[in-house]
């Protein structure tokens, strides 16, 4: 919350004293040795669990560099152990009928690199998960620098159940899925020759999905009772099609211990810090995994152990008076002309091209994003959990 304050100070200064922010990339030492990165979580949910191993990469040209051929196993404080299988490069998965996380037990990760180095995590306690009472939305308006200056949208809120412990730490990862439509029906497609299309809505309905940024991490320490009520999550505005048909949010609520909290809270702080007048000193956030023989070796990432609760909600397209501000395609003269030019030139790389007709039967080659909902990453497969009711 102080960060917000500081951003406002910045805003004030902008007007007041012509401060300015611009994109900048400093010269960084490219030779910094990359470090082993551990990314994985054990919960009380049903297995399988996944541990990802990779190497950190250069900031400017970052890649995901998986690390293969490690021996990866999970042990608990009762001596139970399970070896994970590398299903794909750097992705180690436990078996579906293997060890399941039990609340109150401690878990530890053991790694052995192909060249024989051993890495251990600390033992981490699996916390009793706090339940989610409800997740809901409210219409809110977001300031915008261009007209109409106030853009409506949905803010998601969460109410959690009451925790038993005053010092409860929660970490929320949000996954969104939304259904959206393209603007035109397909009458023909062209791949050198023109084909008529029977099912004109083939590419009309799509589902988009992804991880919501940022994540949220909180502690109940400063609250009068250990529960979050009306806690604001992310905001989805009406400038995109996300709310145009139906939107679904899956809230993964992890009840974490203090170590995990410290890690994610530090990461969050560093993401949010910056751009203000009073930034704190950034620092290296080290996780809970270390080289057994050389504690100075930098190992990044966290082996997270948490109790998990999930909740999925669906929200329909907002109704009036809430206005939608996403752009809608309209056929223009250019689109009709483009249909003609399509036969003369154009590369095969863009085939097939989809053609629509207006109410008078005139054919047009529109911007393909307006006719093919998969054009910008949508999927035609309805997710299992989806319901249109």
């Amino acid at each position, binding site marked *: 919350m102080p960060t917000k304050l500081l951003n406002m100070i910045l805003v*004030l200064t902008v007007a*007041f004293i012509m401060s300015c922010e*611009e994109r900048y990339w400093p010269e960084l030492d490219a030779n910094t040795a990359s*470090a082993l990165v551990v990314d994985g979580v054990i919960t009380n949910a049903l297995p399988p669990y996944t541990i990802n191993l990779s190497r950190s990469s250069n900031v400017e040209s970052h890649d995901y560099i998986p690390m293969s051929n490690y021996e990866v196993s999970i042990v608990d404080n009762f001596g139970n152990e399970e070896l994970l299988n590398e299903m794909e490069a750097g992705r180690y998965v436990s078996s579906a009928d293997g060890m399941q996380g039990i609340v109150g037990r401690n878990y530890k990760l053991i790694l052995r690199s192909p060249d024989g180095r051993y890495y251990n995590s600390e033992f981490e306690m699996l916390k009793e998960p706090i339940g989610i009472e409800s997740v809901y939305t409210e219409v809110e308006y977001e300031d915008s620098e261009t007209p109409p200056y106030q853009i409506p949208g949905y803010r998601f809120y969460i109410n959690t159940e009451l925790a038993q412990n005053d010092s409860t730490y929660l970490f929320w990862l949000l996954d969104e899925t939304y259904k959206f439509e393209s603007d035109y029906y397909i009458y023909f497609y062209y791949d050198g020759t023109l084909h008529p299309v029977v099912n004109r809505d083939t590419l009309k309905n799509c589902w988009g999905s992804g991880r919501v940024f940022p994540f949220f991490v909180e502690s109940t320490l*400063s609250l009068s009772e250990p529960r979050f009520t009306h806690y604001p999550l992310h905001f989805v505005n009406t400038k995109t099609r996300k709310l145009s048909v139906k939107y679904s949010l899956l809230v993964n609520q992890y009840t974490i211990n203090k170590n995990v909290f410290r890690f994610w809270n530090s990461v969050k702080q560093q993401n949010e810090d*910056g751009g203000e007048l009073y930034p*704190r000193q950034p620092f290296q956030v080290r996780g809970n995994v270390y080289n057994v023989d050389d504690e100075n070796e*930098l190992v990044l990432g966290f082996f997270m152990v948490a109790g998990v609760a999930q909740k999925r909600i669906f929200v329909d397209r907002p109704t009036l008076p809430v206005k939608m501000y996403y752009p809608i395609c309209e056929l223009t003269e250019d689109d009709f002309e483009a249909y003609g030019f399509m036969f003369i030139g154009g590369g095969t790389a863009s085939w097939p091209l989809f053609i629509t007709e207006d109410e008078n039967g005139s054919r047009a080659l529109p911007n393909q994003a307006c006719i093919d909902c998969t054009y910008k990453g949508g999927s035609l497969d309805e997710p299992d959990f989806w319901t249109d009711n």
Partner: protein
Amino acid sequence: MTKFRTNRIFSKGHLVSLLFIIILAIPAFSQKNELIITDAYNNLSFKDFVTKTESNLIVRFFYNPDSIPDISIFVRSSPAKLMDVIAGTFTPLGINVSIDSFGNIFLTKGQVLITKLPEDFFMQSQVSGAEPDTLAVTRETNKTFLKTSDAYVAESRTVGTKKEGARSKNALISGYVINMNDSLPVIGATVFVEDLESGTSTDDKGFFTLTLPKGKYTMDVRSVGFEEMKYKVEVLSGGQLDFNLPEKVFLMQAVEIRSQTNHNVRGMQMGIEKLSINEIKEIPVVLGERDIIKVALLLPGVQQVGEGSAGFNVRGSPADQNLFYLSEIPVYNTSHLFGFFSAFNPDAISDFSLYKSSIPASYGGRLSSIFDISAKQGNKKKFSARGGISPITARLLVEGPAIKDKLNYLVGFRSTYSDWVLNFVQDPDVKNSKANFGDAIVNLSYQVNPKNQLKLISYYSYDNISLATKVDDKYNNAGASLSWYHTFNPSHDFNLSFAYGQYNYFEDNYEYSLAAYSLNYELQHYQANMDFSFKKFENHNITYGINSILYKIDNGGQLPLDDNSLIVPVYLGEQKGLELAAYVGDEWRINPKLSLYGGLRYNNYSYLGPNTVFSYADNLPKTPENITDTLEYSNNEVIQNNGGLDLRLSVTYLIKPNLSFKASYNNLHQYIFMLSNTIALSPTDKWQLCNNNIEPMAGNQYSLGAYTNIGAQQIEFSLEGYYKKVHNLVEYKDGANLVVNEHPEQDVLQGELESYGIEVMLKKPVGKLTGWLNYTYSKATVLVNNTPTGEVNNFGMAYPANYDKPHSLNLVAAYKVSKRISFSGNVVYSTGRPITYPTAIYYQDGQKILNYSLRNEYRIPDYFRVDLSMKWEGNLKRKKFLHGSWIFSVYNLTGRKNAYSVYFKSEQGQIHGYKLSIFGAPIFSITYDFKLGNYAD
């Protein structure tokens, strides 16, 4: 007015022709010397006196009204000789009075009009009598440190009587150096005995003492902003000798830095910077707000984390190691609007001194510097007012005598009217923001009798800032001081003062109604000082005294703002501490070449109850798990007591009259620190007291310097090097949240600070072109490696301090084109400050995460700025009601987007790098200043 026209204001050209006329007019007119006036002329202002005399007698006055003060003329006996009255009034002021055979009376300064030929003009062989009062123009100058380019007129003075002096060989003379214009004491003026090549300087009451063998001397009296005066003094025995110095009006420079209390070469002080407000008037600043702190940043060894940030860093020390006094009032928040402007109205300030090393024993409590600001005293003679308007603020100051020569006052206000500026901005966040600040100062000074003076100064400043209607901040500073100056006898005086300073802030944050909260904080500082100065022994200037400070801090808390808020109220408790000190210092002039200053200061600090504190297991990190005991203390019970002995030493050796070497050693202790882990000081930072879990800080500084003056134009050159070490520096654990922290000791790590550097300074204090050029090379590194507990910062490796800028160059120059127009400019360069950059990226739960370098391993781009300003004075008419001047200035002329910080943000899962500049474009401003009276008033 009509009469006045006959009082020709002459120029140099006229003067020469006049000289011819006069010399040709040999016929004697000596009977005119017998012109007689009566007490009807008594107590007239000089102007009225002239008018009256000219209308009644056959005389005409010739003088330059800008250099001849309009003082009252007293006719003490009636009838009196006109020339005796005039000479009696003006000769002590260094003004020559002469009359020619036509009844023309000339009052001149710095130049004697010969109105008749010398007596021996036709008799070459006549034996000359007594030594002439007027010094020969071709004076031998190589012997003195004061290379003067002009001829000076000496006035003859006699101290004591032969009878009194019969018994002793030496004589103790003492007296005041007084500003001729307003009768106020001149602080830090030097009184130099040329024949002995030794001298002294006046103290804070303008008082000096000198012990010297009986005899005839030439004394040179000078001070910043005043005409240099020479006197022929015959010392017959001990006694009083006052000097009246006229203010330097014509030579007043935009930037005149003949600044140090003591002379660059000869003075005992090193590492001190003193500037008067007149000297910094035209230095271009942001938005035309004249600002002493921004000017201090142009001095060598003074750094700042970034533009617009509060506080500064002196010789590698953090900002909380500087102590600010405004005429004895401790000031804890020195800035407005989070650091963009300083909290001091420039009109109400007469000067400031910044002690960077060789801090006198009378000061303590901070390791790095003392920033001592002197508030202006009200004008004793007449009412006057001044003020100004800049794009940000409006100022008004009035001063004058309430009882003439007894009680005078000064009242100054400054306030912003910036709110309406914000209304012009389209951005809704800005439009709905409010920013208000202001300050006020009220000074009263009462001269009870010649031996007793009382001064009362009070100060208030506030900031009210409301950001986009979601966060409201209020900052207040208030303080007052009452001082009593008493002189026991010419060689012994004392000053008793009581001061109070208060700083508080309130913040209401209602961004999220569920978590709406308010924060508050208050610090109170009560101080009592008793300082004595004792000059009885020849060549010794002894100071001694007692200082005591009581700190009361209310750490406030975080409270829910209303019923909807779920914030748990957190009370952060109160703190109380008592700092007592006794000191003695001696400035000892061992011989004309060698001087020594030695000071001892004993500090005793107690952290007092009522309080509940934890004690932690030894040699283990201070974490909740390692708490061994919870201790309750009752009111004023001592929780922790620390004693510390400060040693201050400095030595000056004059190799040649214009070359000296100085060395000093300083040892200090500090018991209060700023709880802050932001890179620049943040508005929610809090001062905290050392306690049973946080050790007091101690610092040592060694410095060495060489000082010389080059050429007759007085270019001052100095080279100073220093090495400084601070123990128990307060640093913080990574990511500590200090805004609401019930147990700060759990987030504090104490370490060591090491800094060293070389400062080269070249000043040109006089001439049409004035200014300075300085270069500093410095390093400041911090090491936090707590061996017993295993707690470290930066993995136990030393790292550069946030404000470590190895190369720094400042050029400040002013050029006076004419009396009415002057230009001035700054060029500022420094290495970019250190920064911690991300060096690698990795993935965690689908998030891209940055891995940062070691602390402060990189640097932001170098800083470079050019500023320019032009001052345009109103007309030079002598009789006018109001004199105005305009200052047009451009800050950051080249518009360089200097980086304030570089940072990286994860946006929609992508990492973007940004550079933030505060003043990323040229900033133009116009400031209008006005005052009652004419240019010279």
